[in-house]
């Protein structure tokens, strides 16, 4: 195992080193804690032919697709949801713009069990979902068999083992012990299923702080390849206990994505025209970021664990 400090790197280094053209990539979080900054960087570095594996991903998948980075998705749901449509996903599937996109579909539970199989070192998992639906008709990797113990039909889903997973968490230590607050999604399993795991986090905290609430550690350091500190990594999406969703920003992105020309100029403005995520945050504005943070703090935050007896 590398020493703790050897795991720490910058976002640019992590994407450059761990995301190769043609790799399969997965993200932690679902709308909350999605690593938007990673999508911006992958698009900026113009990675190509990626296979994106997810249960549900919203804006961060849209950015990868709009950036022409993805050739295939294995997913249950890609959209922007409530705010608007998944315009980039639609354009890619319906019209092949900016490139053709293969889709292999499952359900949220089916994808969850694909990550679980990967995490358990098993070839597949059985589920009682998907049966009777056309998801099976169009996805040959889902097999239906009779329970050998007499319980009737089950659907088998194959293990997912992404080449690299980016999982954004509230806090981690330098070794990568990663603590998650709020919903966990499938992140505990994803971290065990992927071949390389990059933890991005709002805060780096000492291991002694991790030890105070070990139940919050969803991902132990032995699963983790690299650690990157990226405050506001999910903007405009939210992170529980840290900041709330920036709805007006998302609306602006969705409005731009109604046309290909619109999203290209949006990406020029917010991704390609900026050097890095620090420049993006500067453009969003520190006052604005402080406001979304304040809105979260006023509602909910991680309780402070004191050192008192």
């Amino acid at each position, binding site marked *: 195992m590398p020493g703790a400090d050897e795991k720490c790197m910058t976002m640019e280094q992590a994407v450059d080193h761990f995301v190769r053209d043609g790799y399969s990539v997965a993200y932690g979080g*679902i*709308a*909350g804690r999605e690593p938007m900054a990673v999508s911006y960087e992958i698009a900026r570095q113009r990675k190509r032919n990626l296979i994106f594996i997810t*249960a*549900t991903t919203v804006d961060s998948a849209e950015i990868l697709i709009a950036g022409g980075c993805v050739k295939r998705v294995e*997913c*249950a*749901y*890609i*959209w922007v*949801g*409530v705010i608007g449509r*998944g315009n980039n996903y*639609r354009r890619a*599937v*319906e019209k092949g713009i900016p490139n053709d996109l*293969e889709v292999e*579909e499952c*359900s*949220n*539970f*089916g994808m*969850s*069990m694909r*990550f*679980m199989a990967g995490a358990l070192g098993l070839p597949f998992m059985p*589920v*009682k*979902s998907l*049966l*009777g*639906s*056309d*998801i099976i008709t*169009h996805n040959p990797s889902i097999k239906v068999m009779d329970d050998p113990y007499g319980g009737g*039909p089950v659907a088998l889903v194959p293990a997912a083992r992404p080449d690299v997973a980016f999982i954004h968490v509230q806090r981690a230590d330098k070794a990568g012990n990663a603590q998650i*607050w*709020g*919903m*966990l*999604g*499938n992140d*505990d*399993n994803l971290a065990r299923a992927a071949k390389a795991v990059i933890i991005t986090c709002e805060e780096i905290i000492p291991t002694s702080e991790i030890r105070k609430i070990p139940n919050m550690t969803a991902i132990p350091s032995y699963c983790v390849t690299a650690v990157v500190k990226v405050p506001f990594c999910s903007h405009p999406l*939210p992170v*529980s*206990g840290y900041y709330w*969703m*920036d*709805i*007006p*920003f998302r*609306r602006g992105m969705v*409005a731009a994505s109604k046309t290909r020309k619109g999203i290209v100029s949006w990406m020029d403005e917010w991704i390609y025209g900026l050097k890095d995520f620090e420049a993006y945050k500067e453009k969003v504005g520190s006052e*604005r970021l402080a*406001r*979304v943070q304040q*809105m979260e703090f006023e*509602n*909910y935050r991680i309780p402070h664990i004191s050192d008192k007896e």
Partner: protein
Amino acid sequence: MTQAKECSTAELMASVVARQIRNDDVVFIGVGIPLIAGIVAVSTHAPEAILVYEGGGIGARTRRIPWTISDNPTTDNALAATQMWRVFGDQQRGFITLGVIGGAEVDRFGNLNTTVILGVDGTYARPKVRLPGSGGANDIASSALRTIIMMRLQKGKFVNRVQYITSPGYLTGPGEREKAGLHGTGPVMVVTDRCIFAFDDQTKEMVLRNLYPGVKVEEVKQLVDWDLAVSPDLGEVKPPTEEQLRAMRTFDSMGLILEKKTAKESESFDDFFKHMRCAYESIHLNF
């Protein structure tokens, strides 16, 4: 309980779904109107009902509107914050007693399509309209003990046979769910903006059960592609109570979900956050 005089269609839909939630229900809830229905139920007649979100939040008590099934408010003051695989596992195990789902297209057996609209010469791989996909809807339709479908009644959306079954209803008729190996009972009700459909015990076909005030049977029949049966017990939908309306209007005071236009696309960041803050500050949690 007194009945309210005026309400929007969205409010009526929310109150109909809210009434279906029992005090002992564990409900897989989606965002939008189903969420409002859930909040109304727990703040009126079903305080013990537990709302479960796909991201892993269980039993949240929040002052804020969750924008997704995994937004921060889905674990505000929650009973548990767990995993997606865990809550779906709990559903497969049989702990989720009610699920509420929607779709772009539904057929007479309650099968839902949220995946593709093929168009004239479209294919699955290159459809006319690509939709989001299942998300958790297939899982809810497969395994929740009972499900309610919410959809607006529009011509071309209530069809004889959906183009793609994303989420199973009764498939091709009686006995087909059991044959496929599905655990859950299937859909019990379709709540629309004009009427409520139920499912016939024998044929498993959607039948007209209740009309909203002022809506005629013929009008509904014209919007449905098959020869719609009408329940012998056809009745009118009860309007929301004052208590229900108060709960939903307090929680969604900006009308973000309940068909008001306060949240305009052009609204600035400052305005938006000022509004949201007023909205949540007006809500007092008591639990």
